[in-house]
């Protein structure tokens, strides 16, 4: 069956199509060039005056895993505020920031997103997190496994193990936990907190292992390059949220010596400590550094003014921030010699100096980092805001007068401390298509999605042309997933399961001997049970798509 989408205005940056009116053809869930002579077109959809982009890709959104479930447990009041009824095709559910699984899928689909990546899955929690994600319909998914605080790796680094051995361990972790990549969270800091260290800067030593975050960052960054992994190291750096941390973030960029690195939620790592309140924007310093260092990609972690909940593997930072909990309750956990987690509910207020400046810093970064291919739209959902805030953020980026009106509402002192109102840049639709689909696809090494070229999966979002960009992006006219219409006029038409992306990587099996001894001796578990088997995923209806580790552009 072939479907023709005609007369739509197409924004497809990977194929360098910038607003051209062009027909698209879909066959068996894929985009084809055009039907063969003897092939019949069975359906034609006219998209005159419509804008067409590939389905959105969220590179960093906390949608599953133990920390999200702990947040759900902690906050029944948030779930009682947002209740969703079941229907013939939809399940019931609740919540916004820690929305229940089915509705995460429904909400993303309704926003025109077709792929979302859970960025912080601890090795020991991978199996249940993936099973949980099998209950998030309509979107493709994948995970990054958290390393850099696990006792096994720190011991390897302490013993000055060679890079090949580290690579084997990293590859074993990727393969065993069925992830797409590796994330570092506060390198060595979460482990140091287990030994009662309360801070750990880039060159400070972990008490137990006597190694620095710099050394962890370097070996793991190198490891993913050596493995030709689809996505370079995904880094949540040291000192999240600490005034003055931009200096550390700049040093981190130097530390990787030109190797590709993705810095996540940089808004939280762009703080300077100048002024009366010892809190100021470091956005211009970081933007300048990123503009110069082409090896760096980033996502922003924009905050928006609302009640939300912060959920992170960074126990050290979350414990430090628990004093700001709103409402006054919080959870932390030390987890399985892997890392940890912390849940702190938080209300960002536009009357508050720090929160206002955080909001402005995020936008400054969006506008000061020049290359849209190296910066991606995230709120670090739900930490900065729920992902449902994306349309408003897009409007803030595309419409300077709206941005300046919003800027005029924030804390006055924060206004004085920010250059935001002087920044004239406005994103256009082509830039937005890069920021929300083409860029993330490229940095994640996904070749079959994020664009509308031949052989791409037919993941397509169709918007009505509306002047108000928030309205335009919050309510796509139609969303097509793998060739099927799943959303029309804001209503879900059909529920199907997305794919699960995993990286396929080889390693020297000798590493398993050492790991199995470690598992049995210290973790009290059979290491064979740690490895997630394909059959387990299939049993839960998960269809995997393997991405081979053959990236050759590092």
């Amino acid at each position, binding site marked *: 069956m072939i479907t023709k989408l005609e007369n739509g205005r197409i924004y497809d940056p990977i194929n360098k199509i910038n607003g051209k009116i062009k027909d698209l053809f879909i066959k068996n869930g894929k985009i084809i060039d055009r039907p063969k002579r003897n092939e019949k077109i069975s359906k034609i959809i006219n998209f005159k005056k419509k804008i067409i982009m590939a389905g959105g890709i969220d590179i960093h959104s906390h949608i599953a895993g133990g920390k999200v479930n702990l947040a759900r447990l902690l906050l029944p009041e948030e779930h009682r505020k947002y209740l969703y009824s079941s229907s013939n095709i939809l399940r019931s559910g609740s919540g916004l920031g820690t929305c229940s699984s089915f509705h995460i899928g429904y909400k993303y689909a309704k926003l025109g997103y077709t792929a979302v990546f859970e960025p912080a899955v601890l090795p020991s929690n991978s199996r249940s997190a993936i099973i949980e994600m099998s209950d998030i319909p309509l979107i493709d998914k994948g995970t990054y496994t958290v390393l850099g605080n696990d006792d096994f790796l720190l011991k390897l680094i302490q013993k000055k193990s060679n890079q090949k051995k580290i690579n084997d361990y990293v590859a074993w972790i990727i393969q065993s936990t069925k992830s797409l990549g590796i994330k570092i969270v506060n390198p060595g800091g979460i482990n140091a907190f287990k030994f009662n260290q309360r801070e750990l800067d880039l060159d400070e030593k972990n008490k137990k292992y006597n190694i620095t975050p710099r050394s962890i960052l370097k070996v793991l960054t190198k490891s993913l390059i050596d493995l030709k992994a689809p996505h370079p190291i995904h880094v949540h750096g040291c000192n999240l949220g600490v005034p003055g941390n931009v200096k550390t973030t700049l040093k981190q960029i130097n530390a990787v010596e030109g190797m590709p690195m993705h810095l996540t939620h940089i808004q939280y790592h762009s703080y300077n400590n100048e002024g009366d309140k010892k809190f100021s924007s470091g956005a211009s310093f970081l933007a300048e550094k990123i503009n110069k260092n082409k090896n760096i990609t980033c996502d922003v972690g924009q905050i928006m003014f609302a009640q939300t909940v912060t959920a992170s593997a960074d126990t050290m930072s979350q414990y430090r921030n628990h004093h700001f909990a709103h409402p006054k309750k919080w959870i932390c956990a030390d987890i399985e010699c892997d890392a940890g987690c912390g849940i702190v509910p938080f209300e960002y207020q536009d009357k508050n100096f720090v929160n206002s400046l955080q909001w402005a810093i995020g936008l400054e970064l969006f506008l000061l980092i020049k290359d849209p291919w190296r910066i991606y739209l995230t709120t670090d959902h739900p930490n900065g805001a729920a992902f449902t805030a994306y349309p408003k953020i897009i409007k803030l980026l595309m419409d300077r007068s709206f941005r300046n009106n919003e800027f005029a509402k924030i804390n006055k002192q924060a206004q004085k401390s920010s250059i935001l109102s002087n920044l004239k840049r406005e994103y256009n639709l082509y830039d937005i298509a890069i920021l929300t689909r083409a860029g993330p696809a490229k940095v994640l090494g996904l070749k079959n999605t994020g664009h509308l070229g031949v052989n791409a999966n037919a993941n397509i979002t169709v918007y009505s042309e509306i002047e108000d960009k928030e309205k335009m992006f919050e309510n796509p006219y139609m969303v097509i997933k793998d060739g099927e219409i799943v959303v029309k006029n804001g209503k879900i038409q059909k529920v199907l399961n997305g794919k699960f992306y995993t990286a396929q990587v080889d390693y020297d099996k000798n590493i398993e001997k050492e790991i199995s001894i470690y598992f049995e001796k210290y973790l*009290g578990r059979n290491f064979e049970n740690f490895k997630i088997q394909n059959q387990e995923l299939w049993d839960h209806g998960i269809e995997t798509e393997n991405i081979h580790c053959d990236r050759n552009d590092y």
Partner: protein
Amino acid sequence: MKNITFTCPFCSLLCDDIQLEAKNNNLKLLNSKCPILINSLKRKINEQFSRINGQKTNITEAINNLSSLLKKSKSTLFTGMGTDIKGTKATLKIADKFKCIIDHFSGDSYVKNIKSVQEVGGFFLTLSELKNRSDTIIIIQSSGDELPRLFEKYIFSKETINNLKKRKVVFIGNKLPKFIYKNKKKLHFDHIKLNSISLLNFISSLRNSINSEISEIKDKKIVHLLKLLKQTNYGSILWSMKELDNNISDLIVTEINLLIQDLNKFTRFAGLSLSGSDHILTVNEVLLWQTGFPIRTSFEKGFPVHDIDQFSTKRLIDEKEIELVIWINSFNEKKIIINKKIKTVLIGIPTHPQKKDVDIFIPVGTPGLDHNSHLLRIDKVVSLPLKKIRNISLPSVDYVLNKVGQI
């Protein structure tokens, strides 16, 4: 005859170092003295008929009858919920469609844990953190009966990442459990004897004293313990909800959670609730991710409504607020409540002693014996894959419920 490495589904430790000898579906335990496992493997399945009103029938008939009861019922409770991830998913799919309520065997005690976390949060740890890092362990009123190998595997073990030598263990509570008494010499051991009411006051005073100068505190027991807590490098507090006075257990646990949070101002501390019987933690996790709420959630209004008092199994049955109760238990023979005025269904193991007393009985296998399965461990972080090792044609809970939902 063959030897199998087996992951045990009968408590929330999910020990995966068990060796069994399997011969014609008979399983002989080779390397463990765990009483729960020994008793579970002793059950001999002589017949595995479905039953309607106590009379033998086939499974198709029983499933058809259950489906009719479910369609007719204006208010249905799923409880017991001794099942795995897939069984819980299947239950929730039906509960959402037919607007039912969900509770669990351990609801009465576990909701007190839930209530405390919903109020103040907490600071928790997993089993390997307990094993490898915890140099001081405070055990509050726990016999360990429901987790027989906890101490052997995670507290008495000598091989630890932190090279822990002799751990300090303080037992606070009324009756010293046998396992601690027997192994006292392996530990630096102390016992603070208190009943439930005194326990609440003691933990509360301890917490209030944390910020005081030791010289200002009069109670010697508190001074002694406070000194120990503050000298600790990494401490843990373990408690067993079921063994605390149910009238004040939520208050006690809240004080424990606050105490742990406060102790982290000085040193490192974390806690672990010794709960999880009949895999309430697995059931609760699936409920949380699929609905946003823990157990004791109703779908009667078309969306989830969570209330830890209103949706208690005992209350709903006593007050006859439901027309149909469906008990699920694929692990053991735990007694169920039968009220003759309420239609009662049991989806349980074939040896269940009450199978003739209910309106419909549907036999099911046990996860990890009769079918592949996933369960979550006591710390809610680690999940284990369990593999079918016996072939006696017993369906799983999710198979039965998916069939019921399809009719």
